[in-house]
Every structure is written in structure tokens, then in C-alpha cells.
């Protein structure tokens, strides 16, 4: 069973699209990722027909429907499109404008191509909705800023962070926060694969978990920590299932991800 949200990567270059698709798929094997790359003559460029075909094919795989019950059109599955440069973006917008049946189930996320695709794929892999996957692709732009700096105030660490964003000093009520500490044991630490494993698990558990202040459901933020062997990490969680979430995440990091 594939994830309810599929991705389409639109690039001027076949190599670029395939490479990014490969990178994203490694971390999200259950997500359908299609590419639309190259111009009508097969060289660098963008082809309307290719883009349209890829979007339609991706939509078929997730069987998305535009709700007719007046509910949030993006509460369910659909297709998230990422595009690299100018004409890719313009072509996707044109395809979406001309085919009204795509409205509501296909969204162009104007996030960074590589980071956005990886973040979107990992988020989609956790079974997220269309809106959540789009948000993760857009949020990936923040991966260029030092999100992992400890105590980095007001960073985008929490996707839904409405209020109560305490810094490392901890102004949150201690009562609903559970904290654990763990030392990284595998040499490469939280590189792509372990970061993906942790973020997927966190998404699955449903609790809000932070590792050294960053949102543990974000694979990019975990990777940005640059945490390698020997680094001590603080794992915090709050809300329902917080204790269990901390225990699981600490256990995963402690276990070394099968790399020791």
C-alpha cells in the first residue's frame, strides 16, 4: 500500500530529476515519486505534455479524489509537485490552470528542489495529508539556516509551533515534558538514513519530539544537527505518549541504527 501523497519532480534536466528522485526514494520507499524532465526535443527544458502526463499518472496511483462533501480539499491524499527553475514552475502552473480536475488534489510546492523533495517524501512516507507534505517541502527552505544550533531561539523547530516555544532553558511547565539523554554511538551519527528512521518513527508515534531543540519529525533538521559519534543529545517530548516517544527515540539512537 503506497502513501496517500505522491510526488512529481519537474526539472530541466533528466539527470537532476532522477538523482533527486533516487535520493528521496531511499528515505521513503513507499512513496510514489514520478519525474518529468527535459524539453519537447529531449534536451534541457520543460515539456508541458510530459509534466501533464507525470502529474496524471501520479494522481492515478494515489487515487485522490476531490471531496464533494465540502470538506477540506487537501485533507486527504493527492500529488505534491516540486519544480527546479523558471520554466518548470511556469509549466506546472499552466498545467494546473488548464486542467481544472486537478484543482485541490495537486499542489505545486515552491520549496527548494532537493531539500523540499526529500522532506516531502519523508513526510509523505509517514502517511501525512497533502497539506502536511506541502508544508514540509516549504519548510525545507529553513534547512539552509543553522536550525540545529542549541538554544537557537525562535527557529522553525516546531512545524505547528503555536506559542509555548521555550528555549533550551525550559520555560515550559515541566509537568508535561519528558526529557531523556543519549549519546550517539554509530560513527556517522544522524546522517540521512538514521535521520529518516527517527523522523518516520516520530511521525508514527504522533508525539511532539525534539532532539537538541529541533523537530524530530523533520529529517532535514535532524541531519542539520550534524550529530556524530560521541555527541550527547537531549530528547524531549510533550503531550500524549511523551514518555513512550522519548524512550523509543533514545533507544533507537542508543542502538546505533545497526551501524556499530
Amino acid at each position, binding site marked *: 500500500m503506497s502513501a496517500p501523497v505522491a510526488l512529481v519532480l519537474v526539472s530541466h534536466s533528466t539527470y537532476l530529476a532522477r538523482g533527486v528522485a533516487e535520493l528521496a526514494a531511499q528515505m521513503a520507499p513507499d512513496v510514489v515519486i514520478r519525474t518529468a524532465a527535459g524539453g519537447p526535443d529531449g534536451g*534541457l527544458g520543460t515539456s508541458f505534455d510530459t509534466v501533464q502526463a507525470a502529474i496524471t499518472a501520479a494522481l492515478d496511483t494515489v487515487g485522490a479524489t476531490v471531496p464533494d462533501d465540502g470538506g477540506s480539499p487537501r485533507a486527504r491524499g493527492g500529488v505534491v509537485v516540486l519544480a527546479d527553475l*523558471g520554466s518548470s514552475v511556469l509549466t506546472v502552473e499552466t498545467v494546473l490552470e488548464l486542467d481544472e480536475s486537478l484543482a485541490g488534489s495537486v499542489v505545486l510546492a515552491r520549496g527548494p528542489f532537493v531539500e523540499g523533495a526529500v522532506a516531502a517524501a519523508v513526510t509523505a512516507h509517514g502517511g501525512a495529508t497533502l497539506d502536511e507534505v506541502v508544508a514540509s517541502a516549504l519548510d525545507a527552505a529553513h534547512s539552509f539556516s543553522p536550525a540545529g544550533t542549541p538554544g537557537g531561539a525562535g527557529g522553525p523547530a516546531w512545524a505547528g509551533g503555536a506559542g509555548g516555544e521555550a528555549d533550551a532553558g525550559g520555560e515550559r511547565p515541566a509537568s508535561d515534558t519528558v526529557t531523556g539523554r543519549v549519546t550517539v554511538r554509530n560513527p556517522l551519527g544522524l546522517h540521512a538514513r538514521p535521520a529518516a528512521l527517527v523522523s518516520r518513527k516520530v511521525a508514527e508515534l504522533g508525539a511532539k519530539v525534539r532532539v537538541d531543540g529541533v523537530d524530530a519529525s523533520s529529517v532535514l533538521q535532524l541531519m542539520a544537527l550534524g550529530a556524530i559519534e560521541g555527541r550527547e543529545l537531549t530528547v524531549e517530548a510533550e503531550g500524549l505518549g511523551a514518555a513512550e516517544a522519548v524512550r523509543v527515540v533514545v533507544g533507537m539512537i542508543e542502538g546505533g541504527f545497526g551501524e556499530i
Partner: protein
Amino acid sequence: MTLDADWAERWVRRAAEAVEAAKDELTELDRQIGDGDHGENMHRGFQAVVARLDAAAADTGSDTAAPGGSAREVGDVLKTVATTLMSTVGGASGPLYGTAFLRASKVSGRPLLDPSSIVALLEAALEGITTRGKATVGEKTMVDAWSAAVDAAERTARDGGDEVAVLRAAAEAADKAAFGTIPLLATKGRASYLGERSRGHEDPGARSTALLLGAAMAAALAGPGGAA
């Protein structure tokens, strides 16, 4: 001069010839401040448009052998141009010109255009381009040429100019505006990555716009079956 669907067809056939003749020039302009594919892309697109028109002519030619009795509307021709360009051009100009011709086709659902409907056609095209490309005047894009064309066409129509005068004003203004992009700093599109180095070069999209509008005027001047 009657601006009907046959005029629209003559227009785009002439545009295809103009693009073919200027293919290398457009490519060279794009090579200087872009990715060097504009001539090739536009040529491919307009050759495909001509092929479509030829195929359509062959079809109707066998069914209805009534020359001149065409019930086609101007918008029908423009819509064919729009969808063909979208599918075949490949660069940013595919969706930009495609959207321009599509919007233009929607306001041209009539057998004949008068001066004010030419203004409406040009306005719709400009609106399509700005919606798609989000550029404004002065950013060294095709918007500069289209926008100058719309202003000139409006003025001429308001002053009582006929169809040909309106098209001539639009074409001349677009040509002048294309040259006018040379000193400008590009802030949209691929050229914007060059920053200051984008100055001193003519924008290829503004130049191709001038070619297209020049072809519209020439098609009106030549009349049905008339040689250039």
C-alpha cells in the same frame, strides 16, 4: 481590411516565417543573458503551429469546398496556437506565449475584429503573461514589449485609428520597447541571475514579441492571398 480568422491564420504563418528568419538572432540574444534556447524553442513551436494549421486546412478543404465562406472565429485559430505552443516550445516562453494566446483567444470568439477588439486581444495576452510570469514593466522581459504595444494600440484606437493603424502602432511600440530593454537590469527569469551583467543586452522575449506583433501588422496589410 477585415481582421477575421483568415487574417489570424496569415498572422501566425507569417510569425513562423519571421521566427525562422530570426532564429539565430534570438538564440544569440538568449545565449548572452539566458540559456541560449529561445530561437530553437520558438522555431520548433511555430513550425508545429504551421503543421497543425496545414493539417486543419487539409481536413476542411476536403469537406467544405467553400473558399472564403469560413465560419471560423479568430479565437479558434488563436486557441490552436496556444495549445500547440504550450506543448512544443519547451522554455519559459512556452507557457508564457501559450497563456497569452489562450487568453487572447477567449476574448476573440467572433468572426471579425474591430479596433477595440484588437486592443482587447492584446490586453488579454498581456494579462496572461503577467499572470503567468509575475513580471512588471521595466524588468527586462517580454512584458515590456507587450505592455508598450497595448498602450499604443489603446491610444490609436481611442483616436479613431482603424484596424491596421492599431496593429501598426502596437508593432512599432513593441519594437521600440524591445530595443529599450537593452540598458535595463534583469530582475526576472534566467537573466536575473546575471545581475548587473544583464545590462547591455536586448531581452530575447521582448524581441520575439516584436516579431510576432510585426507579423500581425504585415498580415493585415497584405490582405487575403496577397503577397507581402
